[in-house]
């Protein structure tokens, strides 16, 4: 039997008393590529944020690599790719500097970066096709290239599990292809993937299983469902506002 990488048992999450996830249970085993699908507000992003410990469960348990999430400390085994680069700021940072953050889970806070770190950063940049942009400021990249930067950051830590939140939302076709290629070689090397998506696009052949979240419950767990209605159109593109669960900065107006 393949080892279980993620187990959620009867997970419940609520924001301000409003339930977002109600009694969700799922298991992801090593080597699987699982897509979490669902409409906006279905709770699919909340599900992976709860798995990563970014939002607290009000009931139920999360187990990561066989350890209860509360006691889990081997964060270097997980590579997280958020929906987009954080709010950012005026301080410039190069692509290589952002990707180098991916090494911290392995290296720790106190040890200065060494040759292995620089090599891993360079390899991750090659994997997503951004090697020639390493010294450019991240802010000068297109949205798709910024998304690839975040994937390179996760890959730089050489994780066993990649968790991606809507990696292809609003991303140009060239970046989607580069992204699918990077993901394919990660999976070929035995990696496990859990990704949230609105639709799969070029990722579709990679997905081994789909979980559909609907109104805070798991509505489907199994084969990848066929796209229906206007979602099936090849040029169908989703660009949508971000959910209310986003953290609010101290000085932001909301």
């Amino acid at each position, binding site marked *: 039997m393949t080892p279980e990488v993620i187990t959620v048992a009867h997970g419940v999450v609520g924001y301000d008393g409003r339930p977002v996830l109600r009694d969700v249970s799922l298991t992801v085993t090593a080597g699987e590529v699982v897509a979490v699908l669902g409409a906006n507000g279905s709770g699919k992003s909340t599900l992976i944020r709860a798995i*990563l*410990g*970014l939002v607290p469960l009000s009931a139920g348990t999360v187990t990561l690599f066989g350890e209860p999430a509360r006691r889990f*400390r*081997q*964060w*270097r085994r*997980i590579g*997280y790719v*958020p929906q987009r*680069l*954080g*709010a*950012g*700021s*005026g*301080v*410039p*940072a*190069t692509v*290589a*500097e*952002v990707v*180098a*953050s*991916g*090494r*911290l*889970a392995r*290296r720790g*806070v*106190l040890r*200065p*970066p060494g040759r292995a770190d620089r090599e891993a950063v360079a390899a991750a940049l090659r994997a997503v096709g951004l090697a*020639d*942009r390493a*010294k*450019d*400021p991240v802010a000068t990249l*297109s949205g798709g290239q910024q998304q690839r930067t975040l994937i390179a*950051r996760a890959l730089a*830590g050489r994780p066993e599990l990649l*968790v991606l939140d809507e990696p292809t939302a609003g991303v140009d076709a060239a970046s989607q292809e580069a992204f699918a290629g990077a993901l394919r070689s990660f999976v070929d090397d035995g990696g496990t993937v859990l990704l949230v998506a609105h639709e799969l696009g070029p990722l579709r052949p990679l997905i081994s299983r789909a979980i559909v979240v609907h109104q805070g419950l798991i509505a489907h767990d199994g084969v990848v469902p066929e796209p229906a209605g206007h979602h099936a159109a090849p040029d169908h593109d989703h660009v949508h506002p971000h959910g209310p669960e986003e*953290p*609010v*900065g*101290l*000085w932001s107006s*909301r």
Partner: protein
Amino acid sequence: MSLFQYEFMVRALIGAMIIGLAAPTLGIYLVQRRLALIGDGIGHVALTGVGAGLLFQTSPVIMAVIAATLGAIVIELIRERGRTSGDLALALLFYGGIAGGVVLVGLSDSTSANLNAYLFGALTTTSRNDLVTIAVLGVAVLITMIALRPALFAVCHDEEYARVSGLPVRALNLLLAVTTAITVTIAMRAVGVLLISALMVVPVATAQQVTRGFRSTMAAAMALGLFAAGAGVWLAAVADTAPGASVVVLAIASFVVVTLLAAVWRRIRRSRPEPTPTPEPHEVVLGGS
């Protein structure tokens, strides 16, 4: 120049340059966090410590360190909650800090000149002991901010990612808060409570006009801070102006000059016929540009 034959001027110069070098290394993280004015707020809180120190005739600087550290930790805990009510809580803390300071200074026997020294700085009164305090704390801030750059960068750049990387996010945030309090308190001697943020933030704002990466921004901001502090004290000595304010005026003048030069440089580069091939081809070709 002859002013620098006096020991107090030399001490003022050295103290200012240490602060000018150290303050931007912290300030860059605050700017990245969009908390550029936090130093100002913590400065207000430090003033209550100064007032308490003058009233109880203990060291105002040590009391200021204590008050500023407590204030910084409270602000960080409010920030962590990240709700809009934090806004009001911050305002209460800041104005409470400065009002408390003024009341306490008034209750003590100190003169208003004494209060002014803390509000606007009193570099030329830097004693040998003060200089030792500035040097020790300044170097500690400098080393911490440079040695922990990868981790602090990660936390300030993307806090959630840092959390999923297993970094001690809360400890690093509190470290930044406490370092801010310490920097504010030592910079209080140089530029005063009301101008502290300038030394932390303005060199960073200037540097990022022309730099491409975080590391180069930090290095350029340190050089600019060092220059503004050194040249500011020299200018104050020559023109007989207030040293703290002169340092800040020079820092802001460099910001204006660099911003203008950078704009001119970008314009020149744009008018030249494409010096290097751009990495991405243009999607459309517009005539005449």
